[in-house]
Each structure stands twice: as structure tokens, then as C-alpha cells.
């Protein structure tokens, strides 16, 4: 296993499920316990409730922790406010990309309201992590990625139950990257993605702190990557995609 573990998909904040959730100390705990050198986090509050307050609280929480990076949560329902959020937080070197959760925003990726937000993200030259679940959303994200071919997008959850379709569209869309955090752990998705795309466009993500990092780490380890694949997938791809610097 590589020493360059970088987690491309983390959150910060509580969830309404029977686990124990915490603030940034929990992200830091997982980094230390599992040897994860850096993580890119989005605010749970920003996704499920208040985008502005969530981004602000996350920015304050990760200050002084150079191993923690952040996504600016943006929302197609609030385009002008999303642009303002990006313009504010992209001056902070810890905020490296945008995060969209279409389901909470009640805006499918195929919605005409989504493209203007993608245009704004692409214009700023930053990648995005986009929650993607189901074949329809996978295809819609591919359409957006093909419309802005210079923009790089990380498809969160690898399309969920449509991971096969996600791999197919990524084969045709070189600016799509995949990560596979998901509670449903159908065998073979990581191995097949690497076989189809090469190891350069598959990333390690855990969904912590919704999930314990151990859960997805165990899946990626069971996928039995070669040392060269592991070095890229488990760390270096995220460094390159987001321009991260390890402390």
C-alpha cells in the first residue's frame, strides 16, 4: 500500500443515522489512524442545508490544518450566491475545488439550471466533485463534461448502482475521473475501472465522516492493486487533480 494516501471525498458534520459524528477532529482522527496524508472535505451542512454557513464553518474548522483541503459547496438553485462563494473561497489555498450534490439541490444534472453553474466552475479553472447516482445522472454528467472538455470532474460514488455505465462513459470522456465510496460494495468496480481507464483516472475516496475511512480502505485493499496502481489511485492522482501539496 502506498504511503501517499489521499482521500478525495470526505465530509464534515453530523448525519441523521446511528453512528457517532464529530467535527474536524474526526477527520483528523481518521487521517492519523489510517495514515492518510491529506483529505479534501465538503461541508455536510453546506450540502444538506445552508451552503453559505456550511462553507464558512468548514473554512474556519480546517484553518491551521494544512493536511485538510476543502471543496466549496455550490448549488445550481443559488447560482449567483454560488459564484460569490467560489470567488470568496478560491482565494484561500485550502479550497481547491467545487462540490455539487444534485439530489439535495433538487436539480438533476440534466436540468437546464445545471449547465450555467458548470460553466462558472469551468471558467474558474477548478475541478469539481459531483454526487452521481444512477445511469441517467451518469450520462448527464458525461454530456456536461464533454461540453467543457478542459474542465475536470470527479464522479462521486462512481455512479453508485450505475458503476458499469460510469466506467463506460469515462472511457469516452477523458476529463471524467472516478471514485467509488459507497455503502453497497459490489465486487470488481475498482478493478474494472482501472482496467478500462488506466490507473490515472481512478481515485481513493471514503465519504468520511459519514463513513469510517476503514470501510472503503478495506474495499480498495481487497481490490489488490499493483504497487504502481496503488501509488496513483490511493494518492498521487488526487495530488495532481487538485494541485495539493502534502504538509
Amino acid at each position, binding site marked *: 500500500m502506498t504511503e501517499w494516501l489521499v482521500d478525495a471525498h470526505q465530509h464534515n458534520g453530523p*448525519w441523521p*443515522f*446511528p*453512528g*457517532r*459524528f*464529530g467535527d474536524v477532529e*474526526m477527520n483528523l482522527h481518521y487521517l492519523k489512524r489510517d495514515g492518510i496524508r491529506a483529505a479534501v472535505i465538503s461541508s455536510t451542512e453546506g450540502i444538506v442545508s445552508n451552503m453559505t454557513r456550511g462553507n464558512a464553518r468548514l473554512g474556519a474548522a480546517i484553518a491551521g490544518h494544512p493536511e485538510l483541503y476543502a471543496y466549496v459547496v455550490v448549488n445550481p438553485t443559488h447560482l449567483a450566491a454560488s459564484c460569490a462563494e467560489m470567488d470568496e473561497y478560491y482565494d484561500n489555498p485550502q479550497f481547491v475545488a467545487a462540490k455539487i450534490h444534485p439530489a439535495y439541490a433538487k436539480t438533476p444534472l440534466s436540468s437546464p439550471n445545471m449547465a450555467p453553474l458548470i460553466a462558472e466552475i469551468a471558467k474558474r479553472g477548478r475541478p469539481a466533485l459531483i454526487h452521481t447516482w444512477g445511469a441517467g445522472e451518469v450520462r448527464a454528467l458525461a454530456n456536461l463534461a464533454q461540453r467543457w472538455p478542459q474542465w475536470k470532474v470527479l464522479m462521486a460514488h462512481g455512479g453508485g448502482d450505475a458503476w*458499469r455505465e460510469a466506467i463506460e462513459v469515462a472511457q469516452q470522456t477523458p476529463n471524467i475521473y472516478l471514485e467509488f465510496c459507497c*455503502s*453497497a*460494495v*459490489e*465486487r*470488481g468496480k475498482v478493478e474494472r475501472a482501472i482496467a478500462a481507464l488506466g490507473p490515472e483516472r481512478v481515485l481513493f475516496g471514503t*465519504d*468520511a*465522516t*459519514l*463513513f*469510517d475511512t*476503514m*470501510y*472503503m*480502505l*478495506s*474495499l480498495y*485493499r*481487497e*481490490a489488490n492493486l499493483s504497487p504502481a496502481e496503488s501509488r496513483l489511485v490511493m494518492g498521487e492522482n488526487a495530488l495532481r487533480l487538485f494541485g495539493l501539496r502534502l504538509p
Partner: protein
Amino acid sequence: MQITDIDTHFGVDPGSDLDLSLGNLVSILRHHGIRQALTHALSGIQFDHATGNDDTWAACQAHPELFPIATVDPRRFVGMEAEIARRAEQGFVGYRFYPQRQGWAVDGQLCRRLLQAVAQTGKPAIISVAGAGDPTRLLRAAEGLELPLVLSGTSYGTVGEALAVLQEAPNFHLQMHMVALPFQVEEMAAVGAARLLFGSLTPAHYTRPTWAMIEASELSDADKALILGGNARRIFNLPDPEAHP
């Protein structure tokens, strides 16, 4: 620690291109050092339960580390209670039911009749309760029946309801699969480690994620041993794997 996996399967799924063959199942279990697993043929779920139960029996005869779980599709109705009784007499260690996948209701009379028939055998049953409200509906369907039931298929969004049901019904147990939340193992064990059983859905799913979460939890080694195998051996009356090479 001796691992017993209560939820494995083999065969062909028309909606999956994964290798779900019996050979691959056995290979994966051996790779992970799992010396006991309950299993059933997919043909029994998707095609015909009698054919599937025959397939399961043959597989377990060929591989002594596998223990047969029978399945019945109650939509067939005719002969379903006889099939349940016949498989108990044959030596199946329990039953596995798929209401959501097969399209029958947990709170319907078919389910009630199924559970009554299983109760007559004295064997346990594993039943999928994936949807919100399903654990509660099963609690009502099993009212007055003493059979051991293992709830399966809960996700992080429905496991809270399953735990509430376990607090009501001492004969209910919970399969540990898709256990991903921080400290979820510890929160589930609040109902008693003796009521939790590890089942991986191998070979369709990766084997290790929930297993690793149990190992890494703050539970005692004794409680981990119960969840990872001891409870399964007690509830399904399996031999000690040390005495079953």
C-alpha cells in the same frame, strides 16, 4: 478467530456480469480464510425454489465448508409449506427469504404462512427488510412466533429502525453488512453482541469492508468472535470448524 459468513450465494444472475460461480465463491472464501459459510443458489431465488434448493444441496455436499440455506418463493403458494418441511428434514440449516426482490409483502398473509411453517421446523430464517418500515412490518408478521429471525439488507438509512425492532423482539437478530458509519458497530452492539451476525454477500460483494469494521471496533475480542462466527454457529447449529476441517 473463526469466521462464519451467513450470507453467500452462487449461480447466475441475469443482471450481473460478475463471476458468481460456485468455484469463485469457494476460492474467495479460501483466500480470506473463511472456513464456514451459509450459502444458497441464485436459481432458487430467481427461477424455481425446488431446483435452487437441489442446487444448494449438491454444492454443499461437494464443499463441506458450505452449509445449505433453503429458500422458498411464497408467490408459488402451492406446496410452499411442504417444501419448507422437506428441506428441514433433508438437513438444511435454515431459510433465506427475499420479499423485496421477489415482490411480495412482509406484512402479507403469504409471509405470515411462511414464517409459521418455518417455526414448525425449529430452524432460523434470514429475511431481507431493505425498505423503510419493513423491519416494523416483519415484527408484526412474526408476532407470537418464537423462531429465530435474522434481519438482512438494512442500510445506514434503515438500520436504526431495525435496532428499534430488535429492542422489542428478543428472537430477532441483525445481519451485519454495509456497516460503514463511524462507530456503527458499537451502536449496533448496544442491543447485545449475541444478536449480530456477519454476512458479506460474497461473491457479488467485496468480503472485507464490514468484517474490517468489526475487527477495528472497540468491542471486546469475545464480542467480535460472537459476531464474526460464534452467533452463527449457535443459531444455525453448525459444528465447530476446528472439529470440521
